[in-house]
């Protein structure tokens, strides 16, 4: 018997996943959330197909503690692979149980049944029965133990994404839009140092202070904003004395691991002699949500209800209970969409900020928003990375390959079971809760070493992960984690080796790729772009070496006078296994490519001893419409293969393709991101 998908093994009661309502709607419960990636649409398509109903009959219930299955975090491009598989199987079971009941009800054979949009007919009778006739408002009472056959691998229909209609009509669907009678607006006052002197606010607002945690609230949002600005400007804090030379720190004390079959192991790291060595780097990067983090809460009768856009409400719940000193069961968290987060941003921190504030003012709903400056200054950044690449070549062939990556933690999501609490507010209250010491992650393809293992087959491969324990800035999961830096380095280095060997970058790569699906996407992208000639560069990776394959060609213009780089075209070829929502998949692949362009061309978090100086969109510029290339995408569908997570697949390959295109355009190899005109000039000076 075939094993159930993991999420169903964790929650095997069918009624926790599927319910038929008396009006014919079918509720499907999931622990994953819509982050703007279109996942609700994909889940709806899967459920509709397995249940043989129109997609408009499906109503998804997402992430509410105590109601939906606990599925951890919505992250890592895993939702289609894990929850998609669980929904497919749960709905297949529901359909089978309904059909068995229909066969008894109609007194016909199971084989004679035909389903059309939830109405069951039979070739043996003219009678009909609907899903709601049989199970409307009734439980299935089924404990799932094994998988059954699912619907055939037919294509899912194309539908308009189900969450978009209210967004284009201006309906208030975001957490920022929540509103209750008598609600209080709130802002926090926050600094990196310790509070020395607090300036009291004027006017009708209230200030709540617990240690260094300070919140200001009132019924008039404009007054709250004014008060927050004044209190922040006129209070004093100690300097955090941040250590500013990050690249030197990354080269310093670290814990080194050798990757064996993709798993970091504590072994002596060999130090081979390598004739060809290059070093690449990326800076700290921001998630940079367009909407600042926000959350709402109400505290009454020693219970709290929180509305927030955390990617992992079940993980957050016990931590908030600890900080508020209440029972875990007294905390309810309801997910509400925020602006796109692209990983672990301020969404969890602000949930605690709102909870602390609501606890101080029982019986009132509180809606707390971070300011733009706070979003830029206090989110946990994607960490800086250094990738030292090395190779030996014999007769133009790579015989030895070395990838040595050093970085800070990429994973500091708040999670129970550890002594500390990784939420900003918890370190500010009195007494403060300790933060957890960052620890190296030793699983396959997590954090720093994600995609450090090359897609290519070389004779000797040495991959080293170096965990640097203390980052001056808080860091955590940013879309694709280490894959962005690692694939940038691998793909840049492959080009350098190809050029050194006098080979063309396409054939040089193909020679070392065994996996036929990787070979197919590489060929497809070159075909799609019509070749690699001119100012074009190539990049390829399979995300986590186990999810979506993506190959990217980037074409650039480099202005000789200003040294400005402009991406003109991007071509993407991808293989995500069985495609559920082609348009949604394409949107994610393209969005990832554009975001990577922004990171690679423009972005770096700047800071000095007193704190972050990238405090708004002028001091942390991101890509704009005038900088957007034409993007063309082809997806290779494999209807009989399992679906592969794709939301982060293009970040690394685009970074590599961009660097290689810049080299093709002007002969300058930029190894340190971002590729600003200043950096291009610096790299040009080095290469002279």
């Amino acid at each position: 018997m075939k094993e159930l998908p993991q999420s169903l093994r964790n929650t095997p009661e069918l009624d926790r996943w599927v319910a038929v309502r008396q009006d014919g709607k079918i509720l499907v419960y999931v622990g994953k959330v819509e982050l703007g990636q279109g996942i609700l649409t994909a889940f709806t398509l899967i459920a509709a197909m397995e249940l043989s109903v129109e997609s408009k009959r499906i109503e998804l219930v997402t992430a509410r503690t105590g109601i939906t299955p606990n599925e951890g975090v919505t992250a890592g491009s895993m939702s289609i692979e894990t929850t998609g598989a669980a929904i497919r199987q749960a709905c297949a079971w529901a359909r089978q149980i309904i059909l068995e009941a229909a066969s008894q009800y109609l007194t016909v054979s199971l084989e004679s049944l035909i389903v059309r949009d939830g109405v069951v007919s039979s070739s043996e009778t003219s009678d009909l029965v609907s899903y709601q006739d049989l199970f409307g408002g009734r439980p299935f009472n089924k404990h799932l133990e094994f998988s059954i056959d699912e619907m055939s691998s037919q294509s899912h229909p194309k539908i308009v994404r189900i969450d978009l209609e209210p967004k284009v009509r201006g309906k208030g669907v975001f957490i920022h839009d929540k509103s209750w009678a008598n609600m209080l607006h709130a802002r926090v006052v926050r600094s990196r140092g310790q509070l020395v002197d607090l300036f009291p606010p004027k006017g009708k607002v209230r200030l709540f202070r617990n240690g260094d945690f300070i919140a200001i609230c009132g019924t008039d949002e404009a007054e709250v904003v004014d008060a927050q600005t004044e209190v922040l400007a006129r209070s004093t804090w100690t300097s955090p004395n941040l250590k500013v030379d990050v690249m030197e720190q990354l080269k310093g004390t670290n814990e080194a691991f050798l990757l064996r079959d993709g798993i970091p192991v504590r072994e002596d790291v060999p130090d081979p002699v390598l004739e060809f060595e290059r070093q690449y780097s990326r800076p700290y990067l921001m998630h940079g949500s367009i909407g600042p983090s926000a959350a709402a809460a109400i505290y009454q009768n020693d219970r709290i209800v929180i509305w927030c856009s955390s990617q992992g409400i079940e993980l957050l719940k016990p931590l908030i209970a600890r900080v508020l000193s209440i029972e875990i069961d007294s905390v309810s968290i309801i997910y509400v969409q925020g602006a796109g987060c692209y990983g672990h941003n301020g969404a969890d921190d602000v949930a605690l900020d709102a909870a602390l504030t609501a606890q101080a003012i029982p019986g009132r709903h509180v809606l707390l928003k971070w300011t733009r400056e706070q979003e830029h200054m206090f989110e946990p950044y994607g960490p800086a990375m250094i990738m030292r690449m090395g190779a030996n070549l014999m007769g133009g062939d790579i015989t030895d390959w070395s990838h040595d990556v050093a970085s800070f933690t990429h994973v500091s999501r708040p999670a129970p079971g550890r002594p500390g609490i990784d939420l900003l507010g918890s370190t500010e209250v009195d007494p403060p809760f300790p933060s957890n010491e960052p620890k190296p992650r030793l699983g396959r393809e997590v954090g720093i070493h994600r995609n450090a293992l090359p897609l290519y087959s070389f004779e000797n491969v040495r991959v080293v992960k170096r965990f640097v324990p203390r980052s001056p800035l808080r860091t955590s999961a940013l879309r694709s984690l280490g894959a962005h830096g690692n694939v940038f380095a691998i793909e840049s280095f492959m080009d350098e080796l190809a050029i050194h060997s006098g080979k063309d970058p396409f054939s040089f790569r193909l020679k070392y790729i065994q996996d036929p699906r990787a070979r197919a996407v590489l060929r497809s992208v070159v075909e799609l772009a019509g070749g690699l000639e001119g100012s074009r560069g190539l990049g390829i990776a399979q995300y986590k070496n186990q999810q979506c394959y993506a190959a990217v060609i980037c074409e650039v213009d480099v202005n000789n006078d200003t040294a400005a780089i402009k991406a003109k075209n991007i071509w993407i070829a991808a293989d995500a296994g069985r495609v559920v929502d082609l348009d949604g998949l394409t949107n994610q692949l393209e969005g990832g490519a554009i975001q990577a362009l922004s990171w690679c061309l423009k972005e770096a978090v700047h800071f000095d001893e007193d704190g972050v100086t990238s405090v708004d969109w002028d001091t942390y510029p991101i890509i704009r419409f005038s900088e957007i290339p034409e993007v063309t995408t082809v997806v290779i569908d494999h209807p009989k293969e399992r679906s592969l997570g794709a939301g982060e697949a293009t970040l690394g390959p685009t970074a590599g393709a961009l660097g290689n295109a810049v080299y093709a355009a002007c002969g300058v190899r930029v190894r340190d991101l971002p590729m600003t005109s200043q950096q291009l000039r610096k790299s040009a000076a080095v290469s002279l």
Partner: protein
Amino acid sequence: MISLDINGSITEVETTDDVPAIFVLRNVLDIKSVKLGCGLEQCGSCAVLLDGEPTLTCSKAIGDFVGRTIETIEQMQSPIQEALLQGNAIQCGYCINGIIVAAEGLFRRDSHPDRATIIRALEPHLCRCGAHPRIIRVLMELASR
């Protein structure tokens, strides 16, 4: 008390004229399309049409909007909304208000803008998800109709 001409009707609002317009629109008039993104006129998500011109509301005082016509996407019924929807040209959707407003302002002046003109109109608007290529594609298609 001030009087606002908003979405085709005159509305009396109890506020002072120095309050940033966004807070009056969102919190008093319940117009949630207008998004607070930066409060610094840097991201564009708070835009409305003011006398037909895309205008940011996060820093300007509501007094500047008195005696002028304010339009928001709730009542817009614009083909741009439908085109973005049908083209799935959105990801998280937080920025889309500003983009609809900017495009609507442009298309009212010029129903067949070229790519460069579309981009110029959208330039003040940030999108972090990378939906730009689709947005441009959809608007180009609309301009060619």
